[in-house]
């Protein structure tokens, strides 16, 4: 339905475009729309799209850092580098590690964020700002400070093992164990990111109308039942948003591993992003670009899958 259709014949506009009033007005509106979009599109095109396209092209060549001065004197290798990634045992290990981070870390972080949001939404009024800011601080705190404290917690004689000692459990050397290092880092990442989810879920919880809850209470539903059958379904779009944001972030898991364990021990905390970072450091730009775009494909696929699974069913 166009504006021309809603304008009564008697107004000033009526006589303007006698032959095809709809088409010309539509064209003008399209032009106006593009004008609105133009500043963004220009900057986006130059500073985001073009580097993206050239790095994508690079991933099909054997571009190395020594080639920058003469970019076209490289060999086109097609999909060879993508294939080489899959036959690289270190890359395969990094894929598995990243997968573990994603599939274990996302539910954990979402549960923590949801628990916090529910707690903060349950009618507490005092200290609310303290709690909100407090739980969000890890999101903005530098990884350096976070790493120092977490190492203090996870050391063989650190806080965690001391506390385990109180209940008679002898804790292992968390960060030096090939089986426990990655789970420890996952917990650390969840702690760092639960603040973002808490904020998103708080926002979502506030969209659940109070009347629905009250109606359910009148019907005698327990808090647990109300949560499962009313709150959670209504939170679906919020959960989706949280899951997608986390997927994008966790698939690019890098910082915690870089600062705490440097990818070790024995590559058990090496992620795809870390592998890519190393390749860029070696100057193998083409190879590293291929790894990055493979990661991008994974992000896109996972997001798509989540949209399908968590889409609003109404």
């Amino acid at each position: 339905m166009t504006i021309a259709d809603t304008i009564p014949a008697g107004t000033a506009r009526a006589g303007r475009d006698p032959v095809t009033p709809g088409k010309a007005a539509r064209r003008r509106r399209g032009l106006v729309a593009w004008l609105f979009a133009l500043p963004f599109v220009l900057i986006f095109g130059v500073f985001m799209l073009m580097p993206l396209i050239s790095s994508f092209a690079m991933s099909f060549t054997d571009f190395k850092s020594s080639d920058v001065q003469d970019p076209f004197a490289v060999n086109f290798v097609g999909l060879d580098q993508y294939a080489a990634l899959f036959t690289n045992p270190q890359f395969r290990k990094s894929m598995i590690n990243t997968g573990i981070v994603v599939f274990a870390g996302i539910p954990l972080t979402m549960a923590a964020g949801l628990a916090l949001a529910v707690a903060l939404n349950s009618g507490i009024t005092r200290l609310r700002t303290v709690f909100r800011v407090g739980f969000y601080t890890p999101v903005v705190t530098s990884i350096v400070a976070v790493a120092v404290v977490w190492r203090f917690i996870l050391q063989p004689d650190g806080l965690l093992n001391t506390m385990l000692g109180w209940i008679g459990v002898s804790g292992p050397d968390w960060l030096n164990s090939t089986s426990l290092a990655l789970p420890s880092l996952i917990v650390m990442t969840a702690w760092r990111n639960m603040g973002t989810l808490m904020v998103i879920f708080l926002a979502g919880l506030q969209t659940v109308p109070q009347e629905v809850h009250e109606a359910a209470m009148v019907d005698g539903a327990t808090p647990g039942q109300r949560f499962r059958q009313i709150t959670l379904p209504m939170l679906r779009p919020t959960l989706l948003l949280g899951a997608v944001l986390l997927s994008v972030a966790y698939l690019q898991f890098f910082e915690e591993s870089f600062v705490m364990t440097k990818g070790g021990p024995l590559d058990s905390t090496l992620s795809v992003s870390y592998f890519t970072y190393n390749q860029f450091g070696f100057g193998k730009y083409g190879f590293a670009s291929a790894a990055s775009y493979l990661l991008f494909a994974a992000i896109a696929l996972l997001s798509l899958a989540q949209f399908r699974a968590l889409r609003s069913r109404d």
Partner: protein
Amino acid sequence: MVHRRTCLGAVLLAGMLVAAGCGRGDDGSTTTGPAAPVASGPASGTITLWAQGAEGEKLPAMVKQFEAANPGVKVEVTAIPWDAAHNKYQTAIAGGTTPDVAQMGTTWMADFATAFDPTPGGVDTSGMFDGAKGATQVNGATYGVPWYVDTRVIYYRTDLAAKAGFSSPPATWDDFKAMAKALQTKAGTKWGINLNPGGADSFQSALPFVWSNGASLMNADNSKWTLDTPQLADALKFYQSFFAEGIADKNVSTAAGAREAAFVNGSTPMLIDAPSFIGQLNQAGGAGFGSKYGVMRFPKQQSSTSFVGGSDLVVFKKAKNRDAAWKLVQWLSGPKVQTDWYKATGDLPAVESAWDDPSLSGDPKLKVFKDQLTDVKSPPANTAWTQVSAAADTQLERIVKSGTDPAAALKALQSSADSIGTGA
């Protein structure tokens, strides 16, 4: 759907364009003819200079003397953080925004050599340590000059060593291990020595042992990696034995300040580090701690060879003020300036005669450094080294933490290195 088809079409088109335009030329060797000599006379114009960290902070004061000696010249120093400096140089070379002169870590020379100006014949480096000069040679040509040097020696607690019955440094490998053990049994320390158990940069820290056992990483003409040799395996076996026999901690803490703390409180009375570590130890240990520890050369097996690092000064090919840049480099390589630089920063001079100055010759710890610098080697200067080194780090970690047999690990490393190539 329309937009999906256009997307696919765009990608295909881009792909074809890329394929059409690409292809390495048949260029073979890059011709670097003899470097043009530096014009005579005083320097003039503006010289842009990049330096990292502390060097970058202290250079502006130092170069004022150069500016005084060469009126009409202005030196602009930009300090770059060490963190990500490698990225910075990579992108600067890519974008053509390199300065005239830069401080280049010795391990980075091979990575960026194609962007450097070859050293002109008139620049004199005869008075510098041979080991340091080795790092400036890439693919048969010389780039830049050594600026300051860095090496690795063994730090040890003299008071605890005396308790363990060692009043003078051990001469051989067997003595060395015996000393480490004795520190545990007789002086009651928790560990004998702090050694890198694998992971990032660990292989590089084990190189002194490798070289001291007569092993070399490449063959004579640098065309092939020679990692799978009995000498290398024996060196790594020796290294492994410290962990296997409980003398070194497999799970040593990498937290900030942990090594210093352990050395100061005596739980780990020996470690391997660079001369710059002295400053940190003195800060951690407080006043008077300096008398409680000493440094010694690596113990001798076939030789007592250590690692040489540091930084070189390079002039870029695209330098806007080449002649003045080389003059500045020559000035910074003069013995007196080298000594002054040591006094300002603690960086050890690359020029041997600069060490004759009392501030350097009088210090017993520095004597050890100079002594060690007479027998040092640097890792191969080729673009494949960082990758081979990373593969070696992984193998070393297996050797230390999983107890893998060094010979088997080296076989695997050799095949990795062969597939990585020599970056020629």
